[in-house]
């Protein structure tokens, strides 16, 4: 058997260089080139001290002009920008969640979308006091969906899912007045607060940032995750492969990209349709190969084992292989560059959502009613495009790694159940993990999430940090583009146990799991919240006492900041590898990196040196252990 080895960043970059070389031949643009064009970035923007909120400005803060025209200081400007950034992220995630609620509402026995996990649906219904006894499962689904939709606009009260948090955490939210009300209100309120002539108090702006974030993590995102599981099945461990080598030279390659599983699930279904496969064969292909990019990839990998072609900064590479018949996208993190790029090759760039319309794309509007029909149409378009492939432009790098993905909260508990002893332990809890942490066999856990960002060498921070952490017996739960970074490198292979310290290695062996656990897409960070909530309940410790931290070393989007806010507000200290646009105000930055700890027991730390970032997390975890006398 071939010895297990991680794929290095150098190996991946060498292949990327070859692809870019091909790209240059056909006149393709690239993000690498655009980064050069955009550098250096505007310092005022980078530090968050450019205010473009009213037409008196833009105003910029300098030592000579410490206030804007309205008199707002750096702390107020930075704080407002930060809150707007957060609101953007919360709105985005939550709108994704809302669209899943709508899909659930339209689910029916003989429809395009069905309830695949009725048990989970019943559990949620019970949590929400919705009757399930003797009712048709679709009746229940519709009432749950409608109740979920009300979480976006009901006039009174706070988010229903807050009750999932430990009592201690709920009390903090109440006391600090950051318990999120309805989602749309938190977003609107954020926009209102940041309007000209409203809030400029840094504390108030920071508090609302946390509250808007919480409405995402414990509201919109959580509904997105939970209802996706109800509709498409709760992920359980499944084997897959990752990196560009999953694309198949002799098959029709369809790349799904974006976030909402409603689209990708349908594409996957029709790509397996015998009629479509026969059609593909009639065009000289051996079959149809669906692979994913970005969070869509996470969704279909963890439910179907669909291979992962790459993450955010790999999206252009899949087109550059010259072997991509269609790249089908829905919402979020899609480069408008894909339009012009696809024109350099035979690739069809297919947009499907009214939320994400782009030039140079074929728009096929996708909704619950026409999903099946349109999915078939898309698959057919891709197949028919196979004949247009320019053979001399095809280059598929051979790199790929095995990965075991699909560790939803439920799957983690099920995995932990396998190491319980029926004569002493109960099942269905996180207690085995607690015992590993308490005894010190595992030192703690890091929730590593987030994007790619050209400010950091692609995937390098994710992978290097993960390697360092697992070597120190720290288990990782990951999602989003961090997850794909791990999978591409090989860290989600069970063989990666050999890169761990003795403690984590033993745990991986006994649980038959990889050391880096794939928890899903970026909305699925809500799964991590459920995990820490239950870890706290099962251990008797508060969330902020747990030796668990969050980390986003290559983050870039507004969603990431929204996530950061709810992770911190839940009690997990979070380490960032890229500086947010807050450097311009020591006061506001100081709140984020210190002051808010007095409110929620956790705060942000920004450490741009990746090596030091790893050490800082390990130190924080050890500090928490000492505090607990473990």
């Amino acid at each position: 058997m071939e010895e297990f080895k991680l794929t290095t960043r150098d190996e991946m970059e060498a292949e990327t260089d070859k692809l870019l070389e091909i790209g240059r031949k056909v006149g393709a643009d690239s993000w690498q080139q655009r980064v050069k064009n955009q550098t250096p970035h505007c310092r005022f923007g980078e530090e968050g001290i450019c205010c473009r909120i009213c037409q008196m400005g833009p105003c910029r803060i300098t030592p000579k002009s410490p206030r804007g025209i309205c008199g707002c200081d750096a702390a107020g400007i930075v704080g407002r920008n930060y809150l707007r950034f957060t609101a953007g992220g919360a709105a985005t995630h939550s709108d994704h969640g809302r669209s899943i609620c709508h899909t659930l509402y339209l689910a029916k026995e003989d429809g395009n979308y069905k309830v695949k996990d009725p048990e989970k649906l019943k559990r949620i219904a019970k949590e929400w006091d919705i009757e399930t006894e003797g009712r048709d499962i679709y009746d229940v689904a519709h009432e749950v969906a409608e109740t979920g939709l009300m979480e976006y606009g009901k006039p009174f009260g706070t988010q229903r899912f807050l009750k999932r948090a430990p009592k201690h955490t709920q009390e903090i939210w109440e006391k600090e007045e950051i318990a999120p009300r309805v989602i749309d209100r938190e977003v609107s309120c954020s926009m209102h607060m940041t309007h000209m002539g409203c809030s400029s108090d840094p504390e108030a702006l920071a508090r609302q940032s946390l509250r808007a974030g919480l409405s995402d993590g414990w509201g919109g995102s959580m509904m997105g995750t939970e209802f996706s599981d109800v509709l498409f099945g709760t992920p359980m461990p499944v084997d897959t492969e990752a990196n560009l080598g999953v694309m198949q030279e002799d098959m029709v390659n369809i790349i799904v990209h974006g976030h909402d599983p409603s689209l990708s699930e349908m594409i996957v279904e029709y790509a397996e349709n015998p009629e479509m496969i026969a059609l593909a064969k009639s065009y000289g292909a051996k079959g149809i190969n669906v692979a994913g990019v970005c969070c869509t990839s996470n969704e279909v990998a963890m439910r179907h084992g669909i291979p992962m072609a790459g993450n955010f900064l790999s999206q252009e590479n899949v087109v550059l292989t010259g072997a991509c018949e269609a790249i089908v996208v829905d919402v979020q993190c899609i480069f408008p560059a894909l339009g012009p790029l696809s024109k350099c090759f035979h690739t069809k760039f297919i947009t499907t959502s009214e939320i994400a319309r782009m030039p140079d794309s074929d728009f096929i509007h996708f909704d619950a009613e026409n999903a099946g029909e349109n999915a078939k149409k898309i698959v057919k378009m891709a197949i028919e495009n196979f004949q247009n492939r320019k053979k001399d432009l095809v280059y598929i790098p051979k790199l790929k790694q095995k990965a075991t993905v699909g560790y939803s909260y439920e799957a983690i508990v099920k995995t932990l159940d396998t190491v319980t002893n029926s004569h002493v332990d109960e099942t269905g809890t996180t207690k085995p993990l607690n015992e590993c942490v308490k005894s010190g066999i595992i030192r703690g856990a890091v929730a590593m999430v987030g994007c790619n960002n050209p400010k950091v060498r692609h995937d390098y921070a994710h992978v290097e940090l993960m390697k360092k952490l697992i070597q120190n017996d720290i288990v990782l739960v990951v999602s989003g583009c961090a997850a794909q970074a791990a999978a591409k490198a090989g860290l989600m292979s069970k063989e990666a146990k050999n890169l761990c310290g003795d403690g984590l290695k033993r745990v991986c062996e006994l649980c038959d799991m990889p050391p880096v656990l794939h928890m899903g897409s970026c909305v699925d960070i809500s799964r991590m919240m459920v995990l820490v909530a239950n870890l706290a309940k099962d251990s008797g410790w508060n969330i902020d006492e747990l030796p668990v931290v969050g980390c986003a070393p290559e983050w870039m989007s507004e969603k990431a900041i929204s996530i950061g806010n709810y992770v911190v507000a839940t009690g997990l200290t979070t380490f960032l590898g890229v500086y947010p646009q807050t450097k311009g105000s020591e006061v506001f930055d100081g709140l984020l990196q210190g002051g808010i700890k007095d409110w929620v027991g956790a705060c942000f730390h920004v450490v741009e040196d990746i090596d030091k970032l790893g050490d800082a997390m390990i130190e924080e975890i050890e500090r928490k252990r000492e505090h607990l006398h473990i």
Partner: protein
Amino acid sequence: MATLFERVFKGSDEMYAKAEAAVAEVSKEYSDDTTCVFPDTAYYLPCLYSMTGKKINTLGMVKEGLAWCKEQMTREKRTHDIFTSGIATACAAEIIEACKYIDGKQPYDKSPLWGHCTDGEVRELGVPLVTGDIPGFVVLIGPAPSAEEAVEIVKSYQTKNIFVFLVGGIIDQVVSKGVKTGFGVRLVCEGYDLWSVSYVISVAVRAALIFGAITPGDYDGIRKYTFERINAMVNAYEPVDDMTVACGAGAISYGFPVVTNDDNDMWRVPRSLIVQKDTKQFVETSLEARGIKLKITNIDIPVNFANAFEGEIIRRGDMQIEADGSRVDCVELVRTKDASEVEDHKIELIGPDLDEFEVGKKICLATIVDVAGRKMQPDFESVIERKFHSYINCIEGVMHTGQRDMIRIRVSKSAFEAGFRAKHFGEVLYAKVKSEFDAVVDKCQVTIVTDPEKVHELRVAANETFDKRDERLLSLTDETVDEFYTCVMCQAFSPSHVCIVTPERLGLCGAVSWLDARATHELDPSGPCQVVPKTGVIDERTGRWESVNAAVEKYSRGALSSVSLYSIMEDPMTSCGCFECICGIEPMSNGVVIVNREHIGMTPLGMTFSEMASMTGGGVQTPGFMGHGKHFISSKKFMKAEGGVARIVWLPKALKEQVRDQLNATAKDLYGIDNFVDMIADETICEDPESLVEFLTKVGHPALSLDPLM
């Protein structure tokens, strides 16, 4: 509250200090070049040797071993450090025990304290481990809450065939209740002090060296092997001190879970360190923690039934009745019948029952098992029949030796008093035959006969069957069959070893003949014994076939690509480690020396069995050395390529007697030599090469005139 890490570090420091003191103590009296080794092992101080590769055999080197232990006791707050400290604690414990053996001392008299287990004993475990007859090991460290409970847990493990080691106060508890202990009954009292636990680790790591062919010093390789393949467990009764916790860390590093009822300052680790307050649940909790699934055969008899009782000896004074085939008529027979002639689970007794005889009586006994099944073949009768010995021996309080009409069975008074009667033989045979041969036996009935006249009739009839079977066996040669079989039963422990079983060459463990392999294949077509069609002959002299090479390559997963069945010099067959005998070439006499596992003395090669055995095993080819079964010695295919049995120049006396008749017959057939066995030397004649050649010259041994071996 001390953390787990603090406890392990403290405990390992304590053990180290004790080892340091023990070494200092013996150093007062002995110099550094004094021998300091365990007896009958080729693996020095096995714990240390396996982890370091250091060949420690003097007091001076023991000191180096101690220094290594200290280096391993690192103190970072990582599992790695408690693991290395834990293993170093076990090694320091081994050093304390090794000091007791200094200068050839024998510190333990085996009544009851056993101390070091020899290589022979470890190798003996090979077959039962492979077959699952010993599903695992447990070491009980205690005293248990009461002597009654101590006996209860020991019996409970024994009935599950788990090999039990005792350390500490539980020894006296068990012994005081009259429980038999010793290696034979798989209940070994190691010592009263915690450090004697190192003897258990020593057995586990030698399994890795012997059966797994792990290189000594391959620290992680040894741990991987024990974690994946050795089902051992620790049960520690409260109070558990820091030193025990440190040893526990070592055990866990090797993959062995620790179960304790002490929850004071104890840190639970799933499937590794388990707190079970109810000591009565230790057994079930431990088996689950190590993932041991037992083959369950519920047999309705009034005494225990387990492999642990296989080695039990029943003395005349303890005997209720005896069936002795050398004095009266006795016989055991399996008969293939039509399904209509067999009533499933019918157990019939013809003649008086055991309670109708006076105490100490020699009785006639016939045990007839009739079987029917669509896939049953008469060739399997002897395969099933040969298992009677093991089945009946596993009954607590019953001893069985021999086969066919030369058997001896003793039933102890205690078994009799517990209610054991003749029909219970039937229950045991029925249950075992039906469960182990379920693929070929659909129906089975047992008839037990004690009526002397009827037994006599049956014996006469049976002998006709035996004669026919012998004729059939004689006609079975490598030339007359079309297929051989692989046997990879050992691969659970020896992953790259493959046996090729032929009519004239049984498996090297002695447990698998060609017929056994055939039956095994029939029982489990995708199991360990696969058909190797005898095709593509390459060289008849050395026994090479293309099909055999292909099978070996396939089933060793590429580790081996070529074997010759009849040569020990050219690509000899590999060994797993549980071979009955090993032969090695003796250059001066131009012959080979064979030594069996039971023989612990020196051979003319200047090596003991253990030392010769350590030259091979683990699926590695070592020209000049070969493990094999006892029956292979008199085979016409034994070393056929190098001239055959005429090469045998030395055998231990006891083994010589066992093979005498058949070996003489083979030599007569092959070379026309009469009484060839008398030309072979043994330990009463010589143990060195010079005297060996002298003797061989005197008797005119044929090996001296054969072509040079090398």
